[in-house]
């Protein structure tokens, strides 16, 4: 990248380059962040001001009403969090088990059907039956309507993650596997003992991808769930945004609090994304690594 040199004075072209780079990148970063700022400040505004004057980036008033409301009547929120956590936890663990096993098997050069199976999996990204047969399969044939299982299954495995896992495994030298087998371990033992211990970063990366996918998923709940008690966070937020009825139902009268219809939506968005925002600084590097390794495969 940047060649090391002992220049103390910056050359003219570097000044020009950075003169473009700094403002451009700064503006872009700001633009990327602005939407969240709006949502956050909007959630902290007095609802009446919003109704009167619309949402503003820098509101005149400050109010915790929307949050007070959410946490005062936490039933719906807790249920939504429950659904999301359930789906995310089981989906991530289940997916990791399946994906790591598959990645291990596809990594083993001595496995004769490796390429055929790889193609078998990869082909699903080229051609698909479409969502209508898929929907019919899930609801009519498998009978998974209104089951959180449907949501879990829908996001369990993707070809991208399997290939990613296989690429991670390339770091494990084959000699290790051979040595373990000489010691009498069967394939599964070699998998667990040798490979898993070396692959903690890989598991973390793919686990995070899975978890993020589940956390943000609203499409599968929309397809398969009808019972409001099952709605996970993002889908619940969606119903608040798009259904007058939903927001009315959320508007159970609470002693002393006027129902903050508009700001409640904003507050709900903040609550739904909050955890992601909190862990973001810590997990960002895993995603960067995952995308990098996945893309290098090409």
């Amino acid at each position, binding site marked *: 990248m940047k060649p090391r040199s002992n220049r103390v004075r910056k050359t003219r072209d570097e000044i020009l380059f950075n003169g473009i780079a700094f403002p451009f990148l700064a503006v872009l970063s700001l633009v990327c962040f602005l939407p969240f700022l709006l949502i956050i400040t909007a959630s902290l505004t007095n609802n009446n001001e919003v109704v009167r004057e619309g949402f503003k980036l820098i509101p005149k008033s400050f109010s915790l009403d929307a949050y007070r409301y959410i946490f005062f009547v936490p039933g719906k929120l807790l249920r939504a969090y429950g659904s999301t956590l359930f789906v995310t936890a089981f989906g991530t663990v289940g997916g990791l088990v399946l994906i790591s096993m598959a990645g291990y098997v596809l990594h083993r050069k001595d496995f004769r059907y490796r390429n055929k199976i790889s193609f078998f999996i990869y082909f699903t990204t080229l051609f698909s*039956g*479409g969502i209508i047969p898929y929907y019919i399969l899930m609801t009519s044939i498998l009978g998974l309507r209104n089951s959180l299982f449907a949501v879990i299954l829908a996001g369990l495995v993707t070809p991208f993650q399997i290939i990613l896992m296989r690429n991670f495994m390339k770091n494990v030298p084959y000699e290790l596997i051979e040595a373990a087998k000489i010691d009498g371990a069967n394939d*599964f033992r070699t998998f667990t003992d040798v490979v898993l211990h070396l692959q903690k970063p890989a598991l973390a990366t793919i686990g995070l991808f899975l978890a993020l996918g589940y956390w943000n998923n609203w499409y599968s709940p929309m397809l398969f769930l009808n019972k409001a008690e099952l709605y996970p966070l993002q889908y619940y937020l969606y119903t608040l945004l798009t259904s007058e009825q939903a927001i009315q139902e959320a508007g159970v009268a609470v002693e002393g609090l006027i129902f903050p219809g508009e700001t409640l939506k904003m507050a709900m968005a903040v609550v739904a994304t909050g955890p992601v925002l909190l862990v973001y600084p810590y997990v960002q590097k895993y995603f960067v690594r995952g995308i990098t390794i996945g893309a290098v495969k090409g």
Partner: protein
Amino acid sequence: MYNPTTTIKKASGNGQRKEKSARIGFFLELKKNKILFLMIAPVLIYFVVFSYLPMVGVYFAFTRFNFNDGLFGSPFVGFKNFKFLFDTGTLLYLTKNTILYNIAFILLGNSLSITVAILLSRVANKTFKRLTQSFMFFPFFISYVIVNTFSYAMLNSGTGVFTRLLASVGIENFNAYSTPGIWKYIIVSVYLWKTLGYGTVIYLAAITGISDEYYEAAQVDGATIFQQVRYITIPLLVPTFIILLLLAIGGILRGQFELFYQLVGSNGQLFEATDILDTYVFRMLRVTFDLGIGAAAGLYQSLFGLVLILTVNYVIRKYQEDYALF
């Protein structure tokens, strides 16, 4: 002691005995690697059930499916569904929208990502680089429902920031949801905003892979940063771009369903300008309940994409073998 090489040699056989030994080879392989097969079995079953089984369902595209007659009892209507889609011009405008949007996404998205990646790779301050990259990557982590929330906050007719802004300069009663013309700008902008971070990571990784020696040699020859970028960085990024392009072309008829659906929703007035194949198929499923038509549109989408990527891959393979996908 287990020796993989021997197994492979034994199982391969020679040309004459190939077929018989292939069959024996499979069972031999199965027995030898029983556990490996077991380990990959769940994933295989998963794809068979959730990816390959639905492929059989393209049969519905040729029926007038209704829930009373069910899976196998619905009347077979041949290509009538396709004819309908074609005659009403639906297929045409859906294809046009889907492709045009994708072209915009691909060209603008990659250009922006490459630019940002180049800028980031050479910017003078490391902390600044880390910080800005974090900001630009964050939109990737939020769900499209939040995108919807933001667009609601901006555009809704009662309290939207943008709506009020227009009112304050005299344009009253602006309803974004009945103004189809602006939506292409909105959709493309939001797409860029959401995917910028992801693309930048990919191109940054590619740039990191470029050996420093090139740059150092160029510097010795007196090249400015701009010249280095133009003659070293960009040409060496072309392979990455082509691979991404290929992958994108394969999905050119597949749209960003979540993006479009969360932004446009069920606002019918906007459909002519913003409807893509994915959202149309979805509405056939959930609103119109015309599953036959929806399946037909879906099949068209998948088939078109498959043919396209095979063609493009074939063409690229003739000219530059390394760039082809397979």
